[in-house]
């Protein structure tokens, strides 16, 4: 009986000894590879990070900074989806880095827009239906959140070129010259 306990305790201890560094290393890796700085360590992504640093998603009066993965990956609390998407993209990006000849930024941008889920934006932008200063947005957001079948839209169909457009200077949300408004449907959506 006693021997059995000792073996059991030993196995648990062994498990902890092995898994603790494994988990913390995974965690450490996750944290380290989730920063914009890490994303910018690939030359392909550098221009996107540079543009983001100058955008209102990094510069606003509230001091909120929205990192790459806040928009481009599922929420970390959805552990499985998050880990899967992150690992998949990590492996794919490294592979493509070596296989593909040239990085087509325009093509990558189209693919990114296509992969975007509204839920990624709605992690932060949750109160979209009541904006007394912007009645038009209230109307448009209703047609997106309660879309008629066949008329489903993505946030990025109207809010595009918002972050990764190359700017000459840093853009602060609170110093916008003119009030922000969505650009209207993307040309692709208008059949042109």
């Amino acid at each position: 009986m006693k021997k059995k306990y000792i073996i059991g305790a030993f196995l648990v201890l062994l498990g902890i000894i092995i898994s603790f560094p494994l988990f913390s290393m995974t965690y450490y890796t996750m944290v380290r590879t989730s920063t914009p700085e890490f994303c910018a360590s690939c030359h392909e992504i550098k221009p996107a990070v540079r543009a983001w640093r100058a955008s209102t998603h990094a510069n606003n009066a509230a001091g909120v900074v929205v990192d790459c993965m806040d928009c481009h990956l599922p929420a970390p609390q959805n552990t499985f989806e998050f880990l899967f998407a992150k690992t998949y993209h990590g492996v794919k990006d490294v592979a493509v880095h070596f296989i593909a000849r040239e990085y087509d930024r325009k093509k990558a941008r189209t693919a990114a827009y296509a992969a975007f889920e509204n839920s990624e934006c709605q992690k932060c932008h949750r109160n979209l239906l009541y904006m007394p200063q912007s009645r038009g947005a209230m109307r448009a957001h209703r047609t997106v959140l309660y879309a008629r079948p066949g008329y489903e839209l993505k946030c990025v169909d109207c809010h595009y070129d918002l972050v990764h457009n190359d700017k000459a200077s840093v853009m602060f949300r609170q110093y916008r010259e003119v009030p922000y408004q969505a650009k209207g449907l993307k040309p692709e959506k208008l059949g042109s």
Partner: protein
Amino acid sequence: MRRPSFLPAFGLLLVGLLLYGGFSAVNAQQPNFPVVKEYRIERSVPPQAVACIECHRATTPGVFADWAKSRHASANITCLDCHLVQSGEEDIAQGHEKYYGRSDLPYGESQYKVPIASIVTPKDCSRCHPDEVTQYSRSKHANTLEIIWKIDPWLNKGMNSANERKTGCFNCHGTVIKIDAKGGIDPATWPNAGVGRLNADGSKGSCTSCHTRHRFSIAEARMPEACDQCHLGPDHPQIEIYNESKHGTMYHAYKEEYNFKAAPGTWTAGVDYRAPTCAVCHMSGSGKVMGTHDVTERLSWETQAPLTVRPQDFKPFPAKTDWQVEREKMKNVCRQCHSDAWINDFYNGFDNAVTEYNDVYFKPAKATLDELYEKGLLSKEKFFDEHLEVEYYELWHHEGRRARMGAMMMAPDYAWWHGFYECKLRFNKFMEGAGHLVKTGEKAYIYPNFPNATGSTQRPEKIFGPQQ
């Protein structure tokens, strides 16, 4: 003694009459005394928008008053919500910026300066009305420039002048908006509210064709008068056809009772209107059929095409619809007031008219025209410069359309006297002329001085890509 007593009385009467006349003239003018539409900005809008409103109510009171009466104004949607553009965009109205430096204008101060565009496009409207714009962008309305450049001989053979096109064709079909080197809009392309206007931002069309600025009224677009600015005349007399039909007759008799202002999705047959307007059948929701801004959607024949085809087979712009599904939708609209027997019998007549036009009139005429070209009796170089080409053109483009559309929208005079009757005469004349050429081997007379055939034959690059 009598005479002198008459004179002053007569004089008094005369003065009285003159005075009365004068007063009544003043009275007639009374309703015109100037009352400026009031607008107190009581709900918060950006200071730049306050500047727009205050300045434009003084400088363009008509535009201001129109907007002030609109649903947009009720919803606190101001000038800025539609006209604002981000700095650096191509279509910024450069000339507008100088007004912010004018001290004689209210709010003419640089602190209110914002970049704006003169032309508001469907893309701008899509910021708040995305579904309507998505539907519209699929329609033949939005793509009409592409369609006419694919099939129209006036354009492709350069048979009319640039100005004839601007004041004629493009007024309804739309221009290709061009921004010149100085950032102004090319006056050859603007002003324009054509349904297929190609805008600087790449979007197609103009919502203000039917919802005229700055009222943007749903009621207006529900009236046949919104459509008849373009859909009239010898080649597509839809409004004349409608007016002749029972639908049109009832509309004119009862329109005072119509409730044109019903909320979207609530406009109801028998309740809000007695007989349909153009919008009822082609656009508005009805029963279980959803409303649409794609006017092509509910069609089952292309009655404007040379050879009548199903919308999905219309080569210049194939619709992404199935005509059987669409006909069922249209029948559902009919069912609000008509029985199935009535509807099916009506469609029977329409389908027969289409088949007869295709087989009896158009196909033989087309085959003969092709034969004349093949034998070199007609010259392929230009169109309209030989009499038989005009005859052929009018057969399908004028009376052929009138016959088909007249049959479709139930106007007997257009189906027969302006339609098939004239088709017969035209067909005989065309065949007689063609037969003469074939028999004698004589080449057709070519009009040597075709007037004003100076228009460009270059297809617009923005639609068709770079051309040689």
